[in-house]
């Protein structure tokens, strides 16, 4: 099955597609999650997990290079046959929908907690998914253009955080490697899951109109950017909060920014959250797209994913409304992150091995 010819994106847009899919809801609590495992060496964990992701990206690249015009779903059909492949495809669709719902759930939880305590959760979730439906229904290139545009906001994000350099204590990162290697590795695991989103490579790669090596280059650039960005955020939080206070603040970035106040502007955390909402939106859109693209692959006659977006969105909204309260939402999102072991690490690698062993490749067009 071939994709619609005109719906392609450039390798430049591809960089931002992956960045925006990676940077999302988790960014607020990411430094804290890593800190609970790796202490004040968390920033090392982030760097290590960046390296691991790079390895994974190369594996993805090898896999996708063999099937240049196919997404993960068609590759599954091709390598494992339509019966098993269909089953795994279904699981992937469920996985992407679940990630989407956990994004919605965490988003509503944080907005409820930080700015709109009285606004009902369902409204926040419905609004977010409404934007998601609107953006994803169009062609992929529209989505990509939107991602490139809103990436400007990341600069605001960085600037707000950079301001905290005036109030940090550099001694807080010492002694480096106090607790040894194990905690850092445990932190790496947590960091890896905060940086999930790079699996979009498997879905988006065939849409990129360029050579295989350029696709890898784009993905690598976005990985490097995100890794540096995340380790910078983690480092700043450690420098700001120090060793003991950190364990009290589950959303360290917001908390840190809340304590700043400029002459004209107070409550900068609100500004920060507004920027963050866009990032949440883009990640949600990416998963919404991935899931509806999966549904589309079940209907070979249809060459457009847009009719399925609506169903996926409704399901993700319904699921996201189920967990309530900080602890339930936390459990739900932990459950979903554990699933990514299978869907981001396990299955793609297995698929690569399978295609290498069976020498399966996409037939070259004449």
């Amino acid at each position, binding site marked *: 099955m071939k994709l619609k010819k005109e719906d392609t994106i450039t390798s430049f847009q591809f960089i931002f597609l992956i960045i925006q899919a990676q940077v999302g809801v988790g960014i607020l609590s990411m430094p804290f999650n890593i800190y609970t495992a790796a202490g004040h060496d968390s920033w090392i964990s982030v760097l290590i997990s960046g390296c691991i992701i790079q390895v994974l990206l190369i594996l993805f690249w090898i896999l996708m290079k063999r099937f240049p015009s196919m997404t993960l779903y068609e590759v599954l059909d091709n390598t494992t046959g339509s019966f098993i492949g269909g089953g795994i495809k279904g699981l992937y669709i469920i996985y992407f929908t679940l990630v989407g719902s956990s994004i919605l759930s965490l988003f509503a939880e944080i907005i409820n907690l930080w700015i709109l305590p009285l606004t009902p959760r369902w409204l926040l979730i419905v609004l977010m998914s409404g934007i998601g439906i609107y953006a994803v229904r169009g062609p992929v290139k529209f989505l990509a253009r939107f991602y490139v545009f809103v990436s400007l906001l990341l600069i605001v994000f960085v600037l707000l955080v950079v301001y905290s350099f005036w*109030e940090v204590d550099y001694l807080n990162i010492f002694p480096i490697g106090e607790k040894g290697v194990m905690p850092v590795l445990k932190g790496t695991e947590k960091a890896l899951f905060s940086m999930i989103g790079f699996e979009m490579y498997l879905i988006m790669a065939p849409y990129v109109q360029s050579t295989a090596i350029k696709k890898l280059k784009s993905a690598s650039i976005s990985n490097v950017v995100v890794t540096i960005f995340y380790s910078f955020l983690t480092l700043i939080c450690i420098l*700001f909060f120090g060793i003991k206070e950190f364990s009290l603040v589950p959303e360290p970035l917001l908390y840190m920014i809340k304590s700043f106040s400029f002459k004209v502007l107070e409550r900068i955390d609100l500004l920060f959250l507004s920027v963050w909402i866009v990032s949440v939106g883009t990640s949600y859109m990416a998963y919404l797209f991935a899931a509806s693209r999966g549904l589309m692959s079940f209907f070979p006659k249809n060459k457009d994913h847009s009719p399925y977006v609506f169903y996926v969105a409704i399901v993700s909204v319904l699921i996201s409304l189920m967990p309530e309260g900080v602890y339930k939402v936390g459990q739900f999102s932990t459950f979903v992150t554990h699933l990514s072991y299978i869907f981001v690490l396990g299955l793609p690698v297995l698929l690569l091995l399978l295609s290498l062993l069976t020498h399966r490749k996409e037939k070259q067009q004449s």
Partner: protein
Amino acid sequence: MKTLLTKKKGLLLGTLIVIVLLTGCWDQRLIKESRLILAAGLDVDPDGKIIDTVVYPVVNKGSNAMSMVKSVVVSSTGVTTRDARFNLDKKVSQIFDASRNRVFLFGEKLAQKDIYSSLDVIYRDPRGSVNAMVAVVKGKAKKSLEIQPKDSTLLDIYYPELLRSTSAIGLFEIETVQSICTLMFDEGNDYLLPYLRINEQQQRAEVIGTAMFHKRKMTGTLTGKESTMLLLLNGVKQDYPRFTFKINDNKDMKERNYITVLVNDIDRKMKIHITPDQKVRVNLALKMDVNVNELPVDHLDSARKANQLNKTLTREMNALAKKTLAKTQKANCDELGIGKRIRSFHYGDWKKMNWEKDYRNISIEPEIKVTIVQHGIIN
């Protein structure tokens, strides 16, 4: 084409309706419907209950179209800070909004017990005013909010301005609710808070020095001069740190016994030596360039005279520094963050030490060198 047009119109209509519906019905907070707390004082009564005193502005419409803004003070008791605030809400029309609070004043008694517990409610609230300044009041904080200083009709302007200006003359660094939170939890790094006395006769507050804290408790006080010295020893130079020293003792006119210098520039180096059996010796080298502000007794017309004064000043400064450091050690207030440095750079030794006890016994040797670099526009 026609269907597309109607579709677009429908979408536009839908959007408009949505905009009308989404005007923040749930979470709007109007200023006219809330009492903005701008300063708060916390005390503890003999039974261990918290007395919360708050100041909020009220606008009274005057007769000739002039409106007067007045500070209103109320206070209430409760088992915790939040409980006391809750009891306040029962007394006052409209709901309190503490998110704009500028200053927290702690009564001495409460500060000596624990300040974290009283601030917990602010850390926990997303709208909590974590950038409010913090200070300790000698006696009751309630008193400090009942005075009516002539400088400003509004106490919530008076206190922040007072603290800011005193900070500029070098008594302390301004600490906020957030900045002390980090220090409360930090190991081997403590903090100072401004220490105020209320003068009821003059209806004013006066900064008489700083309160030394260790973790969550106030453990001692420093005078203004000692505070300035400690700040300089910590490598922090504010805009106008000044010292007055006695340099003579044999004149009839007492004013002529003194010299006042303004610290112009400092250069501090801290060296920590640890012996294999964890005996700590800290060397604090501090070079100070000073301006002579006031010297009624003599004229600085030669470099020789300046040199002599340098020596006297160096001696006096070192004596003051020794006294100050001894006081911090007695109060177990590691303002210089020596413990943190040991933790950072000598972690092996740190693990064998117990800083809670060891800080008192380490030896800190100040080595101050004063150089007069300016003497004003006359000799």
